[in-house]
């Protein structure tokens, strides 16, 4: 019996050793650049590109692999593996030099699989050779402004240089003095308005980069009969399945989901209260689950139905590659939402931040966002110059769909945001904790 126990444990040991050895064997990835690890680093994640990407747009990803989709991983500490990043030539050389001297760029609340940001990370690092420091990918827009304000005197890696916040937070940041102005080489190419609202701050404090529309995203392996519209979310068959993509007290995506629900339930752009009432009804029906929906939780079935931006839903759909299948439904009415990027007034690395702003408004940067499923500000301009590859053009959402999305003005957004962030706990009463990684 001693021998049997011995053999049993020996086998277990060999299995483990075998696994570890095979891990060392198959890992052909180079070691990341050994610089000091900033405290809240985002570990690696895979962003999946579609298999048909034209060579002119992203040369390194032209060849499809035998695996179902092309994937590259970005681990936040070095150059992305698999995708080498394109050098963006439209960035002024003096900025690049100044950025190299600064040595780091700190961004916050920007997951690599959000509108294909991972590709832009790689482009930045290829262009400048400077390390990108990604803080707190799960944070919401409110947390980003709080991080700027909390790190006013801090020149270390905890202080964000660049923020990417919801449109309403652009105005909030201006009032709070969180931003510094930058008018880039791309400024003249920006349209005056996007979705009916000003594309850029008149003083250059922020500008819209991309926008999208709120959709319903469903894991159809778990939910055979996906909801098609807002009213469906109240059906008893969706018990414990409906989730938001963030905390409505701080995440712009979640706030806009509530705002969109208001439009569908007797509210208007001036009155977001019905949105809160709607979610109270969803919660009372037992359909709401207070977990933040991420691609993992959607696939595992913890949050099979979520309300998200169309580009995020597309990103999830691509990264899961049909296993499980994701269905995207465009509810009507829905809301269009834009995100603005700004440089922190207290940025420790302002030149790198300016290079970043140049890159995201350059052709490769904007096309990266289109690949990620977002609509971009320079789209019309790029189409005139015929620089968008045909395959990428196919990925843009149907213009009719976008036309049906309603976009609020700054004043309406600000009022709605205030109402929803303060009213969530009192009306709906369900706190949604933000996961740490």
């Amino acid at each position, binding site marked *: 019996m001693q021998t049997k126990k011995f053999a049993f*444990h020996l086998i277990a040991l060999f299995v483990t050793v075998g696994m570890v050895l095979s891990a060392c064997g*198959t890992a052909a*990835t180079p070691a990341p650049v050994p610089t000091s690890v900033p405290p809240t680093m985002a*570990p690696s*994640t895979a962003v999946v590109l579609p298999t048909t990407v034209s060579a002119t747009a992203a040369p390194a990803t032209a060849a499809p692999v035998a695996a179902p989709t092309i994937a590259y991983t970005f*681990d936040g500490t070095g150059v992305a593996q698999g995708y080498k990043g394109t050098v963006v030539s439209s960035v002024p050389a003096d900025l690049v030099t100044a950025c190299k001297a600064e040595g780091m760029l700190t961004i916050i609340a920007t997951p690599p*699989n959000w509108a294909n940001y991972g590709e832009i990370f790689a482009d930045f690092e290829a262009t400048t050779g400077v390390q990108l420091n990604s803080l707190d990918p799960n944070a919401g827009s409110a947390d980003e402004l709080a991080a700027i304000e909390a790190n006013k005197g801090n020149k270390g890696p905890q202080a964000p240089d660049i923020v990417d916040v919801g449109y309403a937070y652009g105005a909030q940041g201006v009032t709070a003095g969180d931003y510094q102005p930058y008018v880039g080489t791309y400024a003249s190419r920006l349209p005056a308005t996007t979705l009916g609202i000003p594309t850029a701050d008149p003083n250059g404090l922020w500008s819209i980069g991309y926008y999208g529309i709120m959709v319903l995203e469903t894991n159809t392996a778990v939910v055979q009969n996906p909801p098609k519209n807002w009213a469906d979310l109240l059906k008893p068959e969706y018990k414990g399945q409906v989730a938001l993509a963030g905390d409505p007290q701080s995440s712009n995506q979640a706030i806009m989901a509530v705002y969109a629900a208001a439009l569908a339930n007797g509210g208007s752009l001036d009155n977001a209260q019905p949105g809160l009432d709607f979610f109270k009804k969803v919660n009372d029906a037992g359909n709401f689950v207070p977990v933040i929906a991420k691609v993992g939780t959607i*696939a595992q079935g913890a949050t099979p139905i979520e309300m998200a931006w169309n580009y995020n839903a597309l990103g999830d759909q691509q990264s899961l590659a049909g296993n499980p299948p994701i269905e995207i439904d465009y509810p009507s009415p829905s809301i269009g939402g834009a995100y603005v990027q700004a440089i922190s007034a207290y940025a420790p690395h302002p030149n790198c931040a300016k290079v970043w702003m140049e890159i995201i408004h350059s052709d490769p940067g904007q096309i990266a966002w289109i690949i990620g499923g977002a609509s971009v500000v320079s789209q019309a301009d790029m189409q005139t110059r015929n620089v968008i590859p045909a395959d990428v053009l196919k990925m843009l959402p149907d213009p009719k769909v976008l036309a049906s999305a309603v976009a609020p003005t700054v004043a309406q957004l600000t009022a709605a945001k205030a109402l929803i962030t303060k009213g969530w706990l009192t009306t709906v009463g369900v706190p949604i904790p933000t996961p740490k990684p």
Partner: protein
Amino acid sequence: MKNGGKVWSWFWMILGIVYFFLPLVATFIFSLRAKKGVLSFLAYQQLFNDSGFIKGFSYSILWGVLTIIVGILIFVPTAYWVRLRAPQFRTAVEFITLLPFVIPAIVFVFGLVRTFSHPPFLIVDSPVLLIAGYTVLSMPYMYRSIDTGLRSIDVRTLTEAAQSLGAGWATILFQIILPNIRVAILSGAFLSFAIVMGEYILAQYLAKPAFAPFLAYLIQEKAYEPAAATIISFALTWACMGIINLFGRGQQTQIAGGH
């Protein structure tokens, strides 16, 4: 025992076995589902190609080994000294080694981070705090294993014999005592290793790229890779426990924290 009793015994036993194995079987099957419609090891392949996994896994292995070394360096001389020369300190030392049972890991990490993230003790980013934290968390098990080992050998005679031959303290400790409690140390070492590999709280809140925070990240961002990582984690735990059993030869298996 009456036969009716035997039926009940089998009933509870089978229930226990089912409860134990079902989640593991399910996780394994789940990990094979990465490719749609087919059972394959794709999730494992993707996991091993994930640089974050390699980094997290090797980071935890490295710090696990370092923790074991630090533990041996601190606890073996202490246990030896207490047993040999300073029995009056035994109660105090044992009380301290049992403190991590009373102070849950989250509270301990809370204290560590709050104490050491303000000047003048700003060492929250340094590896010293990480090792110290891991050592404290594994202290009850490491110390108890070493103490049990020392109890089973005649420390006094060995020491006296060595001293009569002219050995100094370092020689006695590392060339005479240590080899004799090899088994006990290995048992404690593997337990510490299992603890460090599975430890989440300290690594997460000190923002270190260890294995457990990576696993937590996987669960949110990926569908099937976390299952593969879970199976690997479990296999590792089993291997550690198996080796302990092998060396311990029936010593009561101890329970680890970090949950």
